[in-house]
């Protein structure tokens, strides 16, 4: 009659029962047992200086369509309060347990849009064996998406107006893969295919959050388009180790000297 439960299932079921009970009683919900298995990693990256003005890129093809946009270099994006945007932060430690909730929560698609004669977004990461890499052309001219992941099948796709395509990566990459457009040479983007959801890209305010990371000592990697591995004094070769505990693990604000982001 009784189902054999392992310890984890027993605790989870008890906690779930306790939760619904206390909710019904109007009491504050207890911390679910499941939450004590995972932690969130948060932090903020700040460009400690005045960001140089973004250079205009040479737009010399399809001018009737693309000439009207103010297309500028996106390799160093600093927010109004100094936040450093588009830094890839991802888990380096291999063979980690993945929180089951994340598979359901992850968006089905990671979309690369050809819009306004640039790739949008400029940087993205994908859980390649769970999410679909979906490429679409929202521009009124044909577009091309070309990239060559190391040790994996290259792509060189033509997207007619309104066209779309889907690409399946065959393996994870340790470094983001550059994406180019052969028709419009100023266009560029980066995609990082990983085999788990433990990655994030810093936002316009410099913040990043990697949710539901397994507990314990884990190594992470930071990468930025301008310099590759974000080699900082606190993060040699862009790597840092965190002992992840349940709840929020706040790395705080990391102020980066502008010299660290000078293109080599």
């Amino acid at each position, binding site marked *: 009659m009784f189902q054999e439960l392992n310890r984890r299932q027993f605790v989870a079921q008890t906690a779930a029962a306790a939760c619904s009970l206390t909710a019904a009683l109007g009491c504050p919900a207890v911390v679910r047992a499941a939450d004590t298995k995972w932690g969130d990693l948060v932090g903020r990256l700040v460009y400690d200086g005045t960001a140089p003005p973004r250079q205009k890129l040479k737009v010399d093809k399809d001018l009737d369509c693309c000439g009207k946009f103010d297309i500028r270099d996106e390799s160093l994006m600093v927010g109004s309060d100094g936040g450093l945007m588009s830094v890839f932060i991802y888990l380096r430690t291999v063979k980690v347990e993945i929180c089951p909730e994340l598979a359901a929560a992850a968006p089905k698609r990671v979309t690369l849009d050809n819009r306004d004669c640039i790739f949008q977004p400029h940087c993205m990461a994908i859980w390649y064996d769970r999410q679909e890499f979906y490429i679409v052309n929202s521009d009124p001219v044909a577009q091309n998406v070309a990239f060559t992941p190391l040790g994996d*099948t290259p792509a060189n796709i033509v997207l007619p107006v309104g066209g779309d395509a*889907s690409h399946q990566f065959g393996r994870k990459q340790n470094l983001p893969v550059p994406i180019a457009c052969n028709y419009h040479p100023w266009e560029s983007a980066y995609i990082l295919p990983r085999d788990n959801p433990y990655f994030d890209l810093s936002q316009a305010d410099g913040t990043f959050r990697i949710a539901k990371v397994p507990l314990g000592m884990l190594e992470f990697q930071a990468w930025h388009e301008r310099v590759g591995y974000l080699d900082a004094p606190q993060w040699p070769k862009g790597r840092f180790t965190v002992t992840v505990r349940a709840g929020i693990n706040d790395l705080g604000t990391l102020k980066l000297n502008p010299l660290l982001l000078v293109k080599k």
Partner: protein
Amino acid sequence: MVFLLLAPGGCTTTEPPRFRLNTEGRDPARISRPQQDAILGALEGLFGTPDEPKVPPGIELPLEPLKMAAGPVGSAEDGSLWGLYRKYCAACHGISGDGAGPRAALFDPYPRDFRHGVYKYTSTAGGAKPVRTDLQRTLHCGIPGTAMPSFDRLSDREIVALVQYVVYLSIRGETELFLLQLVLDEDEYPVDKAKAAREGALPAAASWVAAEKMVVQPPPPPALDTAEQLSTSLARGRKLFATKDAKCVQCHGPAGKGDGEQSELYDDWNKRKRGVTPQQTQELARLFRLPLEQLRPRNFTEGIFHGGARPIDIYRRIHVGIKGTPMPAAGPAPGSSGALKPEDIWHLVSFVRSLGPGGGR
């Protein structure tokens, strides 16, 4: 002084040739001795040497043809030749298949660097590797308009041996690229040979096998027996050539003379040699064996096609693109409906051929 000229060493080389480390795009001075030894040692353990090739376990590459192609030039008792690669290929493609043999610097375009596993003239969709018949066709026909000659006079057995050896160099090259990232970027050395095989060599070999399923099967070409059929096909082809969806005109020019507005084109082997400014390009030059070479879109009025001038050859170039170059795949592929329908590609083929001398006849 004369004694110095007669210093010991003699006139013969006793050292067998060795594979050269792929340092393209990297500063060799920044690669430490232990790192270099780790990479080359792992590769030698898996793939052997230019004289004694080996095939890592789990990879389906028969050793006999490789032995025929490898090693110094010689002959067996039955008159068949050995050291085929060194005799026919190494002077241009290099001992390591790096496309930088002693003659390479003379040519435009350069000989192929096999180590990336990317080949231009293929029949496979979706960015896949070529199939063996693609490489055999290249050896039989050569690449007209370039320094790659036809090896039609070789026996079938010899051509198969050379093709297999190219595949071997290619798998070895991709394993090397994996190891370069592992050792130099990730700082992981000494190298776990099992990891190098599992994550470097086996996926590379598997991609060659997977390519067999990606061969494009075109629909039958339209009948072009009557003048009316021909002119209809040409008109459709001309229209497609100019269409915004295919973007042929952008590189090949409105009359197909290769004078489109896209003037600065490079293939993947040369793209990395370019910096953002001319000065940066100059500085990058020391990291590469051969100087930067530009790519020229085909001028169809010449009637010379590198990948072959048969209708099926040109069909394949359009459908699957020319891998490693800006020429994209316009035909359907898994995950992409493409810019052109296969039937339309045939009309484009008619049009492109008609631009050649004598109307492509």
